[in-house]
């Protein structure tokens, strides 16, 4: 569905008052995302996960320097096509809950998303209600304003918006941050449902453990590079099915496993500093 081919991203920063330098945030990232799958992109904060999402959506700051190619359904995805498909075929579930309009009732916002996908207004309203019901938001929540919702409810509203927009590719950026287990599971289940309907879901998260049960594929990112792409079933036992030491260590460091970072101590000398300096 979406293919990323050798994508690299550089962002400017000011080394001094006027000298502008570039830091590499994503380096030669290539990956296919298929329909009907949840593909988790996992990495520490600062690994470039969110930037990847913005690059796909075409929402990077104008000063960003991007090379490489994107293909959506075998057609190149360029600036103009991104603008055209955004909110229709491509949907982003943003990390920040500020993305909801504070002055508009929830059901209307979801209906807007449906209208943007091309539904006439009455049908849009109907499908908005259906989607909100589907994500277990009751009538009171549908009539509410954004600030009256809990974090988990707001995330589900954003998921419902992605749902009604008929998007084929859905990117969820850290959808579980700050949610308690019950809410988190609901949001993750909602994403799984979307994938089961034949859509392609990219789940961007630092929370490897909770991504695993719903993910088909997992890509581990570190410092802007992809470390390994493995099927979710490879993350079990001692992680011997994983080929890379870093992803193995990531798996073993979980509290339910070894809770020990010793595996990578030997490799910890990788020039992480050199990247930023």
């Amino acid at each position, binding site marked *: 569905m979406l*293919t990323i081919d050798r994508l690299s991203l550089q962002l400017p920063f*000011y080394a001094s*008052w*006027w000298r*502008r330098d570039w830091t590499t945030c994503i380096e030669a990232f290539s990956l296919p995302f298929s329909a009907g799958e949840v593909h988790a992109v996992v990495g520490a904060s600062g690994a470039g996960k969110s930037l990847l999402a913005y690059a796909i959506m075409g929402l*990077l700051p*104008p*000063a*960003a*320097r*991007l*090379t*490489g*190619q*994107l*293909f959506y359904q*075998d057609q*190149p995805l*360029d*600036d103009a096509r991104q603008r055209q498909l955004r909110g229709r075929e491509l949907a982003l579930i943003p990390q920040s809950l500020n993305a909801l309009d504070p002055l508009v009732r929830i059901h209307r916002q979801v209906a807007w998303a449906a209208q943007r996908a091309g539904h006439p207004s009455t049908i849009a309203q109907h499908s908005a209600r259906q989607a909100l019901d589907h994500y277990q938001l009751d009538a009171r929540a549908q009539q509410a304003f954004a600030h009256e919702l809990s974090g988990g409810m707001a995330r589900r509203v954003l998921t419902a918006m992605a749902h009604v927009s008929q998007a084929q590719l859905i990117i969820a950026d850290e959808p579980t941050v700050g949610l308690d287990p019950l809410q988190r599971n609901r949001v993750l289940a909602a994403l799984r449902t979307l994938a089961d309907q034949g859509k392609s879901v990219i789940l961007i998260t630092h929370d490897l453990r909770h991504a695993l049960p719903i993910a088909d594929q997992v890509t581990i990112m570190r410092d802007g590079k992809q470390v390994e792409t493995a099927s979710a079933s490879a993350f079990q036992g001692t992680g011997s099915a994983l080929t890379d030491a870093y992803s193995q260590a990531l798996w073993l460091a979980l509290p339910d496993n070894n809770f020990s970072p010793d595996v990578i101590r030997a490799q910890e000398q990788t020039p992480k500093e050199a990247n930023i300096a």
Partner: protein
Amino acid sequence: MSQVKPLHYQSTRLPAQPRLMAILNLSIAALLVVGLVTSQWLLGDLPQQMQFDARLVPPSSHHWLGTDALGRELWARTLAGLGLSFWVGSLAAMLSTLIALSLAALATLSRRLDTLVSLLIDTLLSVPHLILLMLIAFALGGGTQAVIIAVAVTHWPSLARVLRAELLQLRQAHYVRISRALGKSRWFVLQAHLLPHLLPHCLVGALLLFPHAILHEAALTFLGFGLSPSQPAIGVLLADAMRYLSGGYWWLGVFPGLGLLLMVLGFERLASHLRRAL
């Protein structure tokens, strides 16, 4: 997959060196300011020099903006007036900002003080500016000092309100509370955490106050409550021009007025530019 050109985000939307552009803009503004400030010395007594053989001459190549009823060069008088306005305006704006900042800081100390400051702000905001201005300037006996004080005393409330709200919000910030828990005094927190955060607000606030202050200075002087008529202030020039307007001596009013307008608009723009940048 057909072959395609690589994506181009190398954008055309922003100049290649946005920060360099901003620095350039600021330098131009600074140059202008220096020019205005030093105009009093550069011009010498040219604005006062009377030429009785060239009274009320329209603009020409010899008398650039024309002359007034006493044969004084209008361009020199306009420039000197703008310079004077600049001085008065910046002093008043600075004083005003200082008042706003100290009252806002005072408001954070206790709830009662906060109520008091808020009350003061609301009271002053509910009284029309100009009337209060005239009263204060009149009470202080007119002159440059009186104008500066009157403008400073009447212009701080809106900025104080912004600063107070900002401070109240900032006081709840985690790092401020942690600083207190790490054993830092109230005073340390105020000067190390809170005030530096307010500096950009103050700068922009002062810059936004400045054109206001200039306009009110001119208005006050025009109405006769401000600077003395012997000084080449813009307000004085405009008041003079009123008397000759019916005689068709249009340049007397147009050029000082335009100068004032340009300066006010220029600083307004600079301020809004800065506000977006900070």
